[in-house]
């Protein structure tokens, strides 16, 4: 492992369906300024900026890094844009962390965003190509067959998906930045919502959100000087794989397994269910909680749904997943991964507020993107590694 790096500042916007009160630069600055304030810094203290977002088609802004350089105080500084579809928020945080771990930069601002209200995500993810037929409508249309395959394979009862959807929305009520607020949400209400992409119902899918998230990463020296507690990076890993190849398991992708094994080895985590106190995992559709519980090694093959069903992943369970409400409650796509990473950091900093997992010392941030092709994960801790 290279030099130590830590999160010393976290900021996010209040996420909504339509943040029509702000422009794109206004949106990203809202998150950036909160993160800088948390770190006790100004733009002048930042050595480099790393920016991430999902497909440019969402807002029709090509090269958003050039568009936003001034807004993020990047004039005269290194500025890098990252794009790994839905996992981009995570890979952006990791790219920024590696800037610091390289020793070349002391303080790096990582920022990820999406302003979905500027167009329509289903349109942006379903743009047809010549010489082919358009057979999949939106992300849900793509993932639904693999969710069905998981259910067939694990023999999970259908109410597990409803439980995840209700649990994450209940957690969101404790998070002032969360988009969806559904007091009194129950699995029954989820089950009663309309069917979109069988077996996925409306309330089992993530919302479309406008929002941004920012993280300030710092060297050990800079972290010692920070006003708040740092979240130390204990491990960081990314993996990718093609969308289709012979032998691929799209339900339990090898890239995810390899990425988890790498990040656990770096952090010295043998058993993630015991070694990780809080997990913020990219679950845009309810069933991805049990699926990723298995992919990430929290449960054996076919057993993930039993953890969910038994309440293990609830805020008061033995392995809380998505105490912030997760992607099911807040989904500014490009920022969704970084929110996972930021919320993991807030947990070990003791700064998660109403959704704090008591005594959390080690937390996992996870993101995935495209057709379960891109994975990014980090483990942060309250103790320096």
């Amino acid at each position, binding site marked *: 492992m290279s030099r130590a790096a830590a999160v010393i500042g976290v900021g996010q916007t209040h996420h909504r369906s339509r943040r029509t009160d702000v422009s794109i630069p206004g949106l990203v600055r809202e998150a950036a300024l909160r993160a800088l304030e948390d770190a006790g810094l100004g733009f002048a203290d930042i050595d480099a900026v790393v920016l991430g977002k999902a497909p440019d088609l969402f807002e029709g802004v090509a090269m958003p890094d050039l568009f936003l350089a001034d807004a993020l105080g990047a004039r005269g500084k290194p500025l890098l844009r990252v794009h790994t579809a839905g996992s981009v928020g995570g890979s952006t945080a990791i790219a920024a962390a590696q800037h610091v771990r390289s020793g070349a930069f002391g303080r790096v601002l990582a920022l990820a965003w999406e302003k979905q209200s500027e167009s329509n995500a289903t349109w942006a993810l379903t743009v047809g190509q010549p010489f082919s037929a358009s057979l999949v409508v939106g992300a849900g249309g793509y993932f639904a*067959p693999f969710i069905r395959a998981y259910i067939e394979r694990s023999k999970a009862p259908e109410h597990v998906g409803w439980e995840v959807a209700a649990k994450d929305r209940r957690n969101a009520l404790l998070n002032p930045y969360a988009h969806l607020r559904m007091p009194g949400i129950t699995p029954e209400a989820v089950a009663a919502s309309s069917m979109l992409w069988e077996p996925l119902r409306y309330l089992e899918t993530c919302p479309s959100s406008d929002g941004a998230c920012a993280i300030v990463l710092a060297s050990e020296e800079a972290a010692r000087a920070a006003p708040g507690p740092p979240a130390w990076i204990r491990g960081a890993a990314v993996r990718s794989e093609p969308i289709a190849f012979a032998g691929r398991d799209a339900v339990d992708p090898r890239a995810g397994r390899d990425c988890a094994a790498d990040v656990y080895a770096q952090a010295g985590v043998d058993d993630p269910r015991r070694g990780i106190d809080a997990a913020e995992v990219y679950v845009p559709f309810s069933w991805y909680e049990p699926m990723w519980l298995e992919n990430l090694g929290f449960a054996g093959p076919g057993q993930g749904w039993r953890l969910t069903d038994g309440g293990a992943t609830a805020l008061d369970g033995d392995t809380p997943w998505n105490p912030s409400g997760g992607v099911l409650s807040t989904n500014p796509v490009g920022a969704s991964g970084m929110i996972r990473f930021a919320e993991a950091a807030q947990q070990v900093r003791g700064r998660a507020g109403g959704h704090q997992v008591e005594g959390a010392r080690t937390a996992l941030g996870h993101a995935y993107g495209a057709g379960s092709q891109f994975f990014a994960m980090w483990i942060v801790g309250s103790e320096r590694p």
Partner: protein
Amino acid sequence: MPTEPPGADPLAPLVGAHTVAFPGGYTRSTGPVIGRFLTELRDGRLVGVRAASGRVLFPPTEYDPRDGSPVTDDFPEVGPAGTVQAWCWVPDPRPAHPFDRPFAWATVLFDGADTALLHALDMGPDAGADPPRGLRAGLRVRPRLRPAGERTGSITDIACLRPEVTAIRDTGRLDYTIRADAALTRYLEAQTEGRIIGSRARSGAVYVPPRDLDPADGTPVTGDVELPPTGTLTTFSVNHVPDPRAPQVPFVTGYVRLDGADVDLLALVSGVDPERVRPGMRLRAEWLPPEERSRTRPSIRWFVPDEGAEAGTGEAP
């Protein structure tokens, strides 16, 4: 004087229109307060008047309507923006109204004022019989003044109010020329003849649609192979979300593992009640009629249950 048209029924009641109007219109003295307001308005400025209590009355009156006390001679500028307090949608304007299309009457509290102005609010030419969604208390608006040379010192020097600019429309587009790669061209050409081709990788794995490189390791494939139009449904989804580019809902999209292939083909599944679709079902390709086939798109219309397959394979255990 009203006159009867020739040939009118002599027994009908005598009815006629009658207008009383002072020639040229009445002369209204404005007094110093209203006069100041209208003079400033003619010059393009919105001024209120400060009451003895400190409140700014806009539009100005010569006395504080709360207690009748005289106002001061301070005429502070207000606006130009204001906030809608209340509104009333007019779906069907009357002849005397300022618009011949739907609009709103709104009371607007201008910035810096303590009382509201009632005026017409233009929500745009696309507004219909129902109030537009954006019309709400709290909406920020500004006046549209008539051109300076046309203003006369009248409340109608404000032609109307209209919402502040909060969004612009960006109609940028990208135009591409797409060239199908060699493998896709061979695949689509073979389909016009009712044949399905795939390609065999060095590992032995068979890809369909064919590829020129194995996505698993990037090595060139060894060549094309022909595949039968039959296969097994791996998994599927029933889509209930309407989309103009997709078939009518509900429709079934499935992953079909053609016999002899090592990857799934994404396809529509038809000819079966969506409720009865099951993983493991045997399927066969249904082709477009030859005259509808084109190498610019797949010629497989969809997959249907393979009636020749052994009975029961399509049912759940």
